């Protein structure tokens, strides 16, 4: 069993005095898709955002415990460097109001790449990896906002891939898309996991079952803090879960 790409140990998060996440420990395996499921408000998105320290944008947030990327504490690293290694795709597609080219080139530019030829090569390979190249290759100057919802989301994925991350975080990436676009994104994830480690938060249990290799189930306790209830290979969790709460949730018997 190879080293996990990311690992958290007893990780807790507080908004001021309120504990939002309670001692979550998880090993995210390398080059696999890990899904985080659970009812609304159980802290899955908050937990996801902990991986790339996006929670720091909220004033008053405090953390305990450790989160590690390749064995290094992410809080000891430079946050810009960290976010280069960990990319994020959001629930609603959010391409910038710029051209397709400028959208994808944004990340590399921020991190120092200026050479136009090099940027063009990166844009092309990122769009290819995101399965969007064939559809937009003739008009990279078109505004990112002029694409359909599914295409916009793939553009956001290309944008995240352009900085060559190791990990890609996806916060309900298909929930704003129609079923056909959703399937395309799922297929894309299947392709991407060969080269990247993917963590996805999803409301859609069938999607988690279809797409992920490992699944983590989270739930809030009486103090409204999010807890990790069960974590394991998806096949096992969906046929013989260990915890009754997991079984009840995935069978639709509550929440």
């Amino acid at each position, binding site marked *: 069993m190879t080293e996990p790409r990311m690992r958290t140990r007893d990780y807790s998060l507080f908004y001021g005095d309120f504990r939002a996440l309670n001692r979550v420990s998880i090993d995210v395996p390398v080059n696999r898709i890990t899904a985080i499921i659970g009812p609304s408000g159980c802290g899955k998105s908050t937990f996801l955002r902990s991986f790339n320290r996006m929670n720091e944008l909220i004033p008053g947030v405090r953390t305990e415990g450790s989160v590690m990327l390749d064995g290094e504490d992410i809080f000891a690293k430079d946050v810009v460097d960290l976010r280069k290694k960990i990319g994020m795709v959001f629930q609603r597609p959010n391409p910038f109001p710029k051209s397709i080219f400028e959208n994808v080139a944004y990340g590399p530019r921020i991190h120092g790449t200026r050479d136009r030829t090099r940027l063009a090569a990166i844009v092309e390979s990122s769009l290819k990896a995101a399965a969007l190249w064939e559809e937009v290759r003739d008009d990279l100057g078109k505004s990112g906002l002029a694409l359909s919802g599914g295409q916009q989301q793939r553009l956001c994925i290309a944008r995240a891939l352009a900085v060559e991350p190791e990990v890609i975080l996806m916060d309900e990436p298909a929930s704003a898309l129609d079923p056909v676009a959703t399937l395309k994104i799922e297929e894309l994830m299947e392709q991407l996991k060969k080269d990247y480690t993917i963590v996805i938060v999803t409301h859609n*249990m069938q999607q988690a079952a279809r797409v992920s290799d490992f699944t983590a189930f989270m739930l809030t306790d009486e103090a409204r803090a999010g807890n990790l209830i069960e974590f394991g290979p998806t096949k096992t969790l*969906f*046929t*013989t*879960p260990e915890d009754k709460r997991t*079984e009840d949730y*995935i*069978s*639709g*018997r509550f929440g």
Partner: protein
Amino acid sequence: MPRESYESNLQTVREELQLLADMAAEAVSESVRILRDRRMDDGDALIARDIIINKKCHDIEEACLHLVATQQPVAGDLRFLFSAIQIAMQLERIADYGKGIARINAGMPPGPHVQPLLDIPRMSGVAVSMLREAIDAFLSQDAEAASRIPARDVELDLLYSQVYRVLLTHVMQEPRRIDDALKLTFVAHNLERVGDRVVNICERVIYYLTGEVVDF
């Protein structure tokens, strides 16, 4: 309660399985009684009834398939539906054994057997009681009970050997009725196979309740 119609559909599957099990058990024990009492007309009726049993098995399978397709069951529910389909198949085979016994009875000339049947009805009793216990274990979700049943299969094996020995001796003493004696060994063999099928059912029950695959 969430998913009420789904729950009631699952309950329907349970009830239908209970019914199918009753029909199969009845087919086996009735077939042996028919054999013992040489009731030829009742034998024909039992053979005809096998169609109804087959249909019920298919209905249960279809109901389970529909639930899998439309309700996306997972974990316990999924294992239940999967096991229900397999158990229905086993029950249908058991009923076929009953039909087989009735057919054998129809193929034998009327009149008393080579010797009064004692062990064969005893085998039927054991097999049918194993079957009823197995179905109870399934529907009341008792893995413990299900794991105790396969041990009784030994009884059936012993009884079968006994039947075989007795009939063999008889044949040697009265070679004229070798045909009837052979047919009776087939009947005993069928009943022994019923026991095997019940053991399969118990394995399915354990899988449903624990997720473990066992071989008894």
